[in-house]
């Protein structure tokens, strides 16, 4: 079986700055893969390249056997890539149900009307927001809005779900709830690529982790090996710490 998502030599420039340069990443079906890197490493840019918000300057993005490099965001969404935003993006004056129904109608090809509402409610139950179904999205707390993003993502009936810092700003209990949700989604057979700052989250969830630094891909390995990788430690903590660490390991 071929890979679900395949990035080859993906570069995205903003003027003279290469926010992402020459990145090769392959995501297999059913993987739960983590994308980490220090601030400004190009993680969100990479997601924007995949989803067509900022198309790649060079290189190709293949998804499910199709070249989607030049696709517009709405086309990417309809092909089966859903993404949640680092800063949540609900339709504030619509109800929670309508927010999810919109995803079902426009990306999931569900008929507008009661059919879409029924499907929306099903996803809201799954993420634990059913009792808020008729409330305005603007009235939700941050943790609830993050769960709403999950429900919207699922309603798009995706093959690949891109989670951009879904745990930022959540407290420990809320993070645990989000973790169990992510596991439940993965168990449904949806491939997940998760961008995350919290190492606890990535290490406990992911089968593989890729690391970006200054727009370059510097590592791609299992969580156990990633935490010992010299280049990764260098990127996060600086050269001196990495040297000390490897000296300690050798000595």
């Amino acid at each position, binding site marked *: 079986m071929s890979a679900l998502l395949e990035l080859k030599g993906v570069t995205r420039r903003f003027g003279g700055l290469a926010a992402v340069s020459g990145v090769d990443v392959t995501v297999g079906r059913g993987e739960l893969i983590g994308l980490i890197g220090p601030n400004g490493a190009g993680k969100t840019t990479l997601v924007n390249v995949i989803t067509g918000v900022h198309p790649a300057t060079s290189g190709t993005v293949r998804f499910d056997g199709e070249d989607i490099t030049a696709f517009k965001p709405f086309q990417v969404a309809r092909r089966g890539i859903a993404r949640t935003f680092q800063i949540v*993006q609900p339709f504030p004056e*619509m109800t929670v149900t309508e927010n999810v129904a919109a995803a079902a109608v426009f990306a999931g090809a569900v008929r507008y009307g009661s059919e879409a509402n029924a499907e929306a409610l099903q996803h809201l139950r799954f993420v634990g927001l059913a009792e808020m179904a008729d409330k305005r999205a603007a009235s939700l707390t941050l943790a609830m809005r993050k769960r709403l993003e999950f429900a919207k993502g699922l309603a798009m009936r995706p093959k690949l779900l891109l989670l951009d810092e879904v745990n930022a700003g959540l407290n420990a209990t809320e993070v645990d709830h989000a973790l169990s949700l992510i596991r439940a989604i993965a168990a449904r057979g949806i491939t997940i690529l998760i961008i995350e700052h919290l190492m606890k989250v990535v290490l406990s969830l992911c089968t593989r982790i890729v690391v970006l630094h200054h727009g370059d891909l510097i590592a791609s390995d299992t969580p156990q090996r990633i935490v010992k990788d010299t280049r990764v430690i260098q990127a996060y903590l600086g050269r001196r710490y990495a040297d000390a660490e490897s000296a300690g390991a050798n000595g």
Partner: protein
Amino acid sequence: MRSSALLAAALLALVALLPLSGDAYWLRLGTTMLMYGVLAMSWNFIGGMAGYPSFASAAFFGLGAYAGAVAQKFGVPMGLAWVCAGGAALAFAALLGLALLRLRGHYFAIASLVVAEVLRELVNSATDLTGGGMGLNLPVPHDATVASQAQFFFYSMLGLAAITFTAMLLTTHSKLGFGLRCIQQNEAAADMLGVNTTLYKVAAFMLSGAFAGAAGALYASWVHYIEPPDVFDVLYSIKAIVMVLLGGAGSVFGPLFGAAIFLSLEELVWRNYLQVHTGVLGLMIVLLVLFLPKGVFARAVPRTRKKP
């Protein structure tokens, strides 16, 4: 919702019965109100539903007026000429939308404002076809009295208003309307959710253009004579927006109520303050928009007061 539906039905019944009064003044006022209603509803497609502050109503209105007049000049029957005018404005809106709807917010507003000016200059210089600055006369039927003419155009405008209202109602409760609401709330998020935003915005703009254009064509036939500064008047754009704001943006009956209120204000002010009527009207609009931004029917009392 129910009470506003009843109010709207009462208003419509009152307006529809106007011809029975036999008073030419009231009939003219009624026809104007219906025309304003069509303009307000047509603006609602792009301005209310999609949230794009269009100032293109005057361009569509004028284009429709001239398209209808020129078609009649070449022997097209009046009714068919109105349909042609609506179609011409629809096609024009499609092309214009593909170019202008890439812009957002103020940029879109300014760009759409210029369109009427450009069309006015074009019509001014195309003297052979449009009569240029001398204006264009439309055929007057020989066998009709003034009174029967007035009644005919009143009912024609009523018909157009009914069609526009139906189209608006259908759009609101359709996938198109749902997508437009998503765009109005958060366009980037709508795009990521699979809404073909360009297509939806252009569709809304086309609907807006078609009905404003048809209103222009009816107006031209009604007054029998049009000239560029009259039909490409930027006030048509501004009035359309103000009427929707008055009646309450986002409600189905808002544009119609707004048209009724606006026309009443315009008429009262014009009659009583002939010298400074535009100034007084402007002041009233500013006050209304400042203090009742959700329309005159929005609850002025804060909701929290109702709770015990």
